[in-house]
Every structure is written in C-alpha cells, then in structure tokens.
C-alpha cells in the first residue's frame, strides 16, 4: 500500500499510510482501538475506497471496486466476528457464495469437496457439522479454509485470538506458520504485544491513522512496542487544573471489595477497591473488555454487585436504582451511547431531558411539560454545539459526534458530585475532543469527582490525577500521576503486576 489516505466526515482514519507486505511473511499490524487498523484493512479488501494513494499487488497498481475484486486479486480476510451462517453446516458455509460451487450440488458432493479442501490446507474439520455448534476455534478454521479456498495469497486475520482459548491459540499459530511456509502472506492484526512478538516476522505500528514504524519483530520487545503503540514521541501536556486546598478535598466515592458478574455468570470484577476524591480525576486504563463497562455500570447503579459496598459521600449506595444514583448527583456517559444513553427513535427533546424530566420546570407533579422540555433541549443543544435541524428530529439522525456532545453535556449538567465518563472522546474529531476535555475538567475544578475510562493513554496522562489499571476485572495497580509513565501503564495493561524498578 502506498500513501493511502482515507477520511470520514470529521475523522482522518488513515493518513498517508505506506506499508509493504512481503511474500511468505507474517506481518503484524499493531495499534490501539481507533488507530486505523480496521479502516486500512477495509480498504485493502475493497470494502472502502481510499481517497488518495494506491494499492499495488506484485508491483502493479490495482483498483478494487468491490470486495469481490479484492478476492480475485488474492486478498482474503478472516473477520473477528466470523461471517458464517450458524444454521448451515461447515460444507454449506464453504460453498456459500463461491463462484466455483455448481448450481446444483448434492450434500454428499459438498461434503466430499469440503473434506478435500480441509485436507489440502491441512485444517481438519467435520463437513456435516452445524457451524453454530462448533467451538470458536473450529469456526475460525472454517473461515480460514473458506478464504483460502477462494485462492487467497494474502490472508488478513483480525484480532484472531480474542475469542480463542490458549490451546486454540497455539493451534492457530501453527496454522499461520504453515501458511507462511507455503509462500502466503499473513497480516496479523492485534493489540496484544506478547502475541505479536511471538508470531510475527515484522510488525507495523499504527497510531492515530499514521504508520509510526515498521520493524523486524526480533529486534523488538514488549516495552519497545508499547512505546511505539502509545506514542513516545508525542509531547503530552498536562491540562491546567485548579489545585484545591487540602481542606476542601474529601472522599466522594469509595468501592470496598466489590465483586460483580456478567449476565452469563462469568466474573466481571474481582475485589475492586477504589477511592475517588473531590477535585480529582481518576483515570481507568486497560485494554477494552477487561471490566471497564461493568465497573462504570456498578457505580452508576445500572449493574448489581455480587458482594462489596459502594458509598457516595459516606452514604452506602449499593443496590440503589440508577435513577436514585443519578439524583444524588452522579452523571454517567455510557460507553455505547446509542444503545444505553438514548432512545434513538424518539426526538432530541425527549432524549435531552432524560435526567431532569422528574424535576421542575420540565414536569410539575404528574404533568410532563413538553414545551419546557423543548426549551431545555434547545438550550443544551446550543451549549453543546450540537448540529440538528431542530429538537423534534429523531435522535438517531444525529451524527455520532453530535450524539456524543449531547450526552456529555446532559450528564455533566447533573454531575454535582461524580461524573463517570466511559470513552467520552471516542470517535470525536480534534476540536470536539478539546471542548469535551475542557467540559470534563470544568466538572473537576468545580469540585466533582471524575472517573475517566479511556483507551488513549495520552489522554489519561494529560487529564488524570491518578490512574488505576484494570486487567481481567482486577485493579492491577493505582498510580499517582507523578509516578505514571506510558511504559509502566502499558506493561500493567498487559496484565503484569506493578513491579518495583520498572
């Protein structure tokens, strides 16, 4: 790929990216969420078209009008969320949408041809098994065979280990190495450092849409990679903040030995102890999916605890409803705004008053006052600089950034004591990030406690007063900002305990 650039409205997803993938290598693509890995791969597989730059295959420039063109050119992708029909058998999935599948084919023929393919690529599977009943590892093998059967010379695997058990990971790595030996190119996308070091020959690190570096994996270690990934060369400025006198500071939120489980029963939080004070931003660092979501929801009263206590300003709030927690001055920007933060089909006005509709002047006794709601909505739409034709528009029609600004404003407005912000800047452009950061810092400087969950370590370092690192539902450590460094947090995020002298 040469000088590939892709922008989405308000976002520069890939900025002048040039990478060379060689024949017979496993090339890892490393970067944080939102670094532009997916966009780049979507361009390479013909899903998106780059704004500028070109893709060259064997030195020849190619244009992909569709995903089908990329497949013809020998580029195939194994998605993180498998693109298989669960109700179909393995053989049916392999033959689905494949131009070499005859118009009429019997089950036996299909099973035979599936077995043949499985033998050819050395990946064992049962052709007549129903895909929905297979383990994640077995489904992944089906997906790999399907891509290989279509003649792929370049195989992109997107976060392939996320769904696998350690044993399955070993198997997968064996398969990938064999593909490499057969002269194919494997592009391995991940944000797990150890894995990348283990499997890849070379590694390219992406950050904020740009290539930071391409290196031989042998010459790297986890620490060097972490540095590249989070961006050592970026000058980070601590945001200016009000230094409140000690007597004004008090503990706002306290979690004692909090345990919580997912709906499935799996453990989500283990013995979490945390404390956040007024005039303080506590950053929560960690690779996505390590308990951040449940942690924020437990505090906000959306998710129950299995044991432990949560107190707000000295009062036990464990088990209070989300409404009661919000009314005691807790704002909560949830991580999936459209799913939990809003009712997308309802108008902007209805969504704007979600936190205040029980209060004057939006309601009076049992009466909901629509005109007051509209007025309130118009006010916060203006304050948050949300662009919408009017407040009667269904919320769904707002762009992601506008939704984000609206919810941030709505939640900041009620967070007199505590603001819980889960990935608040995700998907925003630079200008909007700047304004939102100021808004959050404004809450802190006004004396509220803030919990800021983010996957951007720079952001955490610039904004937080302390940083807690979550890994697999545990707090691995809490660092004062003076002791925090990218390297240290990066290593802890990988699950390594806080070690002396690191």
């Amino acid at each position, binding site marked *: 790929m040469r000088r590939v650039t892709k922008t989405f409205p308000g976002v520069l997803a890939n900025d002048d990216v040039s990478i060379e993938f060689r024949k017979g290598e496993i090339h890892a693509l490393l970067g944080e969420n939102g670094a532009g890995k997916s966009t780049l791969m979507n361009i390479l597989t013909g899903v998106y078209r780059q704004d500028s730059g070109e893709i060259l295959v064997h030195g020849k420039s190619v244009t992909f009008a569709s995903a089908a063109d990329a497949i013809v050119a020998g580029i195939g992708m194994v998605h993180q969320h498998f693109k298989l029909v669960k109700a179909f058998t393995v053989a049916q999935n392999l033959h689905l949408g494949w131009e070499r599948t005859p118009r009429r084919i019997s089950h036996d023929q299909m099973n035979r041809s599936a077995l043949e393919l499985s033998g050819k690529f050395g990946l064992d599977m049962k052709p007549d098994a129903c895909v929905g009943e297979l383990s994640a590892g077995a489904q992944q093998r089906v997906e790999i065979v399907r891509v290989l059967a279509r003649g792929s010379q370049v195989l992109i695997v997107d976060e392939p280990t996320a769904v696998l058990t350690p044993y399955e990971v070993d198997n997968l790595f064996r398969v990938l190495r064999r593909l490499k030996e057969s002269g194919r190119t494997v592009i391995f996308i991940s944000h797990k450092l150890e894995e990348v070091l283990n499997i890849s020959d070379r590694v390219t690190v992406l950050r904020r849409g740009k290539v930071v570096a391409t290196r031989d994996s042998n010459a790297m270690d986890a620490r060097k990679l972490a540095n590249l990934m989070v961006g050592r060369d970026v000058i980070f400025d601590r945001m200016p903040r009000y230094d409140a006198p000690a007597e004004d500071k008090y503990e706002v939120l306290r979690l004692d030995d909090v345990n919580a489980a997912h709906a499935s029963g799996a453990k989500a939080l283990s013995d979490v102890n945390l404390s956040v004070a007024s005039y303080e931003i506590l950053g929560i660092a960690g690779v996505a999916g390590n308990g951040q979501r449940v942690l924020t929801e437990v505090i*906000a009263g*959306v998710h129950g605890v299995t044991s432990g206590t949560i107190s707000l300003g000295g009062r036990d709030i464990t088990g209070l*409803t989300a*409404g009661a927690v919000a009314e005691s001055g807790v704002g909560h920007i*949830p991580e999936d705004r459209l*799913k939990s933060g809003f009712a997308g089909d309802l108008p902007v006005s209805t969504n704007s008053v*979600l936190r205040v509709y029980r209060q004057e002047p939006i309601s009076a006794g049992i009466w*909901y006052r629509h005109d007051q709601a509209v007025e309130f909505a118009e006010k916060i739409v203006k304050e948050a600089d949300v662009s919408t034709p009017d407040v009667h528009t269904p919320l769904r029609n707002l762009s992601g950034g506008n939704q984000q600004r609206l919810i941030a404003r709505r939640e900041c407005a009620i967070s007199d004591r505590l603001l819980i912000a889960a990935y608040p800047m995700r998907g925003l452009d630079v200008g909007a990030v700047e304004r939102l950061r100021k808004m959050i810092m404004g809450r802190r400087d006004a004396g509220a406690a803030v919990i800021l969950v983010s996957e951007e370590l720079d952001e955490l370092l610039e904004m937080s007063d302390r940083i807690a690192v979550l890994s697999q539902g545990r707090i691995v450590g809490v660092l004062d900002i003076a002791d925090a460094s990218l390297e240290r947090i990066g290593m802890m995020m990988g699950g390594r305990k806080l070690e002396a002298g690191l």
Partner: protein
Amino acid sequence: MPGSWRIEKLKSTSRMRGLVFRMVAVFFGLIVAGITLGGLGFQPVSMGVEALAYTLGSSFGLQDLGALVTPLLLTGLAAMIAMRARLWNIGGEGQFYMGAWAAAGVGIHFSGPSVVMLMAMFLAGGVMGAIWIALPAYAKVKANVDEIITTLFMNFIAILWVGYFAAGPWRDPNEIITASSLEIRHALPEWFGFLNIGIFVALVVIVLSWILLTKTVWGYEASYAGSNPDSARYAGIPTGRRLMTVMLLSGAVAGIAGMIEISGTVTRLQVGISSQFGYLGIVIAALAAGSHIGVIVAAVLTGILLNAGIIFETQGLSLNAVVALTGWLLLLVGVAQVASGYRLTRMRPAPGGQASTWN
C-alpha cells in the same frame, strides 16, 4: 453498476408527504377495484356513489357507521397504546370478548338503576380486558416471552369461553336458532336519536389516553421504556413496571370496547359479537402510526369500507370479495405509509454528477 436504481431511506419525512402518499394509494386502490368489479359485470361507480351516499347521507347509514366505528376506535386505540411502547397486543379480539363477557355477567346477574349498572359493567369490562392480557404482559416483562404469540393464543381461549357461557349457563331458553345469552337490559342511552353514547365514551377514552401518554411524566417514562428498554434501565426508569402497565391499559381499552358493544349495538352475549374488531384494531393502529387523531381517521375510514362492503353484499357481491376489497385498500394504505419514508434514487456513474432523485 451504471444507472442502477436504489431505494433510499429519508432522514426525516413530513406529515404532508405521508398524507399525499396515502391518498394516492386509496385512489389507485379504488381504480383497480372498480376495474375488477366492472369486469365482473357490476357498475362500480354507481355502486360506490350509492354506498357512500347511504353511509354518510342518511341517519340509518350514520347509525350503521357509528356502530362499526365505535368498537374500532377502541380496539384501534388499544393496539396503538401498546405499539407506542413497541409492544404488540394481538389479543384485542380476546380482550374484547372477555370485556363483553364480564359486562354481560354483571348485567345478567345484578340489578339496579341503569346508571349504576352501566358504570359497573364499564368497570367490569375494563378490568376483565386487563386481566386477559395480564399473563402475557407478565411473561413479557419477567421472561421476555414474545407477547405476539401469547396475546394471540389468549384470543382462542376467550372465544371458546364466551361460546360456553352463551350456549350453557347464560343461555336464553327462548332462543333456539343461535346460542346466545339472556338479554342485557341496561343499554347505553342514545345520542342525537340515532347514535348511542358509546361513540362519545370511545372519544373520551381516546382523549384521556392522549393526555396520559403525551402530557404526563408516566407517559414520558412509558414511551421511553418502550422505545429503548436498555436506556430506560440506564436512566433508572422502572422499565418492567411501565411496560406492564401499558399492556394492562391496552387490554382494558379493548375490554371496554367489548362492554360498549354488549350494552349498545348487541344486547346479548354470543360468539360473533366482535366481527374481527380486535384484529382490525391492529390494522387501524398500524395506519395511525402512533397518533391519536390517526386512530380516529383510520377507524372512520375502516368503518366506511366495512359499511360499504355490507351494502355491496346486499347487491350481490360475495362476502369474500368484500373482505378482499377491504383488505386490498388497507394494504395499499399501509404500503404507502411505509413508502413515504423512502425515495427512489438513480445512481449515476458520471463524475461529480448529482444523483437524480424521484420522489
């Protein structure tokens, strides 16, 4: 592909656009129906004019129309209340029957001044309608059991239940041909000499529902909880309770429709009192798209169609053809309503060229 057509969802659509689409649909539907009838040897134009003139131009016609529109207003409202909270009450038919049953029971077994009796019957009808949806509602809220299936199944039970009472314990021994109950002596008073006040009661219920759903905190919470239960939980709205109450309310309204039917138009409990009012209510709610005014308009339109159908029947058109005609028009209106939210766009390959648009 050069010059290919694509259907594109509009970001926002005006009420006017929806209205125009629906009017075009009705017009188109009538033309097709007229050609079909003409082909069968009927005089569609004169038949249509006659049916309309009779329905809207005579007091008998208006009386018939009122008798049809009254239950439709309420069953339509019942389904619409549920739909506003993204719930399906397919059980309007059953709740209608059970409301009628409870009202008939009160009317047959107790006596007293008519005003008191009618109020007691009204209450009994509403409560019974709510009871009849309580189980599906509880299962939906507690275990997310699909209410479409459960409310539908309750219909069959209700119809057999009413059949048993009409043919068994409450049977009028003097009625020989059809199994029906003793006469209920407490009838709703008449209004303007030809409409009973049932239609007035129905309109009051619609206004009350409009106030409850759009003007109260409860209505705000109910519509929010229905629109996105996850987000409602995030905001601390007692989601299950709100959705449960919405369903009970929906059942009660359908039950009231049954009560009015039994104490107004029909005065005996029997199988067949509903003439599919419960199911037609779902169609009306779908056409109304969440609007209370829409329910009134759709119920009147459906009433006119049904009444015209009855007149066509007397002129020799078979019942099946009438049902097909009614279904055809309602189908087109429904399609037009959805279609008004989309437009057809032509993709042009020319560089920098604007996509041309057909509305």
